[in-house]
């Protein structure tokens, strides 16, 4: 009898007032927040006070954080950034398709298709092993050097091709890891129903694999968005090159800071979104 009355008392309390445990945890939370706030304030204060004390601060401020130059160049930079977005927009789907094709090449099992498999392996090895900028130079200067007629000598085409070649290799590896991550029992189930190997890949394995690697591919495409700036080395006046032009014009580095801000405005939300997807997927797995 006495036991049940104690239990009743406990449940009564939890419905009205916070329990001992809740009070304790709320205290811990308040304490952690206080400490985090204080330590952040100290670090920010130190930066704000100490950096301007550096001997070159005035010069740096004039060269990199010049409000007048920023206002004059920012619209032009934004306009140039449209070119980055365009190059990104037409290379991304090409990369997705090529990457998928290469991944499938590497996954072929039939002996007659061994050359394809070999090609897939060689492709990913070569293009993951080269600096992006080097591929852009070799293809961007090399192919137009063949003396092709317009518009086939355009650096846009060959620069884009260079990006597609390199990034497909990475995307292919990511997709392949997705294919490997699908449990053997899924293939068994498909085989037991009499599905062919091709149908098993197309309807059972690939749809799951591609879904699993969306966050990892998002990260690659964020990197691609930044690497579009490398095309400036072979001609196209995109944001990085435009910033360089402004730098010479105003004898001031502020346009580079402006360009950096524009990149961050795009890449930070995209990165956060990719992280969000990744976390969601990890939660779903556990």
């Amino acid at each position, binding site marked *: 009898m006495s036991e049940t009355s104690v239990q009743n008392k406990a449940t009564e309390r939890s419905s009205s007032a916070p329990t001992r445990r809740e009070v304790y945890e709320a205290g811990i939370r308040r304490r952690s927040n206080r400490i985090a706030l204080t330590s952040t304030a100290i670090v920010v204060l130190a930066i704000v006070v100490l950096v301007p004390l550096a001997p070159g601060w005035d010069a740096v401020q004039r060269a990199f954080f010049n409000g007048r130059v920023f206002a004059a160049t920012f619209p032009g930079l934004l306009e140039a950034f449209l070119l980055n977005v365009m190059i990104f927009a037409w290379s991304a789907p090409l990369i997705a398709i090529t990457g998928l094709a290469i991944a499938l090449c590497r996954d072929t099992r039939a002996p007659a298709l061994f050359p394809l498999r070999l090609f897939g392996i060689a492709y990913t090895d070569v293009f993951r092993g080269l600096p992006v900028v080097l591929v852009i130079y070799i293809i961007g200067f090399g192919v137009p050097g063949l003396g092709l007629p317009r518009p086939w000598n355009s650096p846009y085409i060959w620069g884009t091709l260079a990006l597609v070649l390199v990034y497909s290799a990475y995307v292919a590896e990511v997709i392949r890891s997705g294919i490997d991550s699908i449990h053997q029992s899924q293939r*068994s*189930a*498909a*085989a*037991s*129903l*009499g*599905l062919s190997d091709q149908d098993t890949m197309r*309807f059972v394995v690939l749809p*799951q694999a591609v879904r699993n690697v969306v966050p990892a591919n998002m990260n690659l495409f964020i990197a691609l968005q930044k690497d579009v700036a490398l095309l400036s080395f072979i001609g196209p006046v995109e944001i990085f090159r435009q910033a360089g032009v402004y730098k010479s014009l105003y004898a001031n580095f502020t346009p580079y800071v402006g360009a950096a801000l524009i990149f961050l405005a795009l890449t930070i939300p995209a990165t956060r979104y990719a992280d969000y997807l990744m976390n969601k997927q990890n939660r779903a797995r556990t």
Partner: protein
Amino acid sequence: MTTKLSLRGVRKRFGDHEVCKGIDLDVAEGEMVCLIGASGSGKSTLLRCMNLLEPIDDGAIWLDGVDISEPGLDPQPVRQQIGIVFQSYNLFPHMTAAENVMLAPRRVRGLNRQDLLPRVTQLFARFGLGERMGHYPDQLSGGQQQRVAIIRALAMEPQIMLFDEITSALDPELVGEVLDVLRDLRQQGMTMVLATHEMGFARELADKVCFLDAGRILEQGPPEVLFAAPQEERTKAFLARVL
């Protein structure tokens, strides 16, 4: 009764470990055979060999008098005749229950959704899943998933159904609904081979019970004989543990 499936001297090894050490077994048409035995005794492997998911190393398997264990034989037509249901359901998680069921008939037998829908709807209704056709596997309970897996195998209209410990992963209160499906199939005269730990079920419905031990069928017979008066010491010991 004609013999539907027959195994002679079937051997299967994984690396150094021989899982099936010469198994002979006959399954007659409309018969229900239960394989019992401890974990690792070779029940699952034997089932996987029967529908050629695992190639056998030696011996032979006949289906309707045709040797299906011939090396180099295309396994796909054979697998269409022998359905299998796995312990872990193995539904395709990215498809609805109905899509899971229709994939193989569509791709392998070239039927379209409209033609399939009446029959599939009827199968779902028959197994108490009429409301669940549009659900994804992770929206279904274990028992429901396993019933969808059975429907998926049945949709190919196989002549034999293999069941690999299909209730072992289920919560106890869900086992009954899956066993009911097997009772239903039994009444329809489906030829079935089950690897199972459900001794009560085997005793109630099986025509023949085979006790597997270390890759051999040590003892086989009708359930009333095997459960009541086992001959081998190991069978006695096993039954004493599980009954």
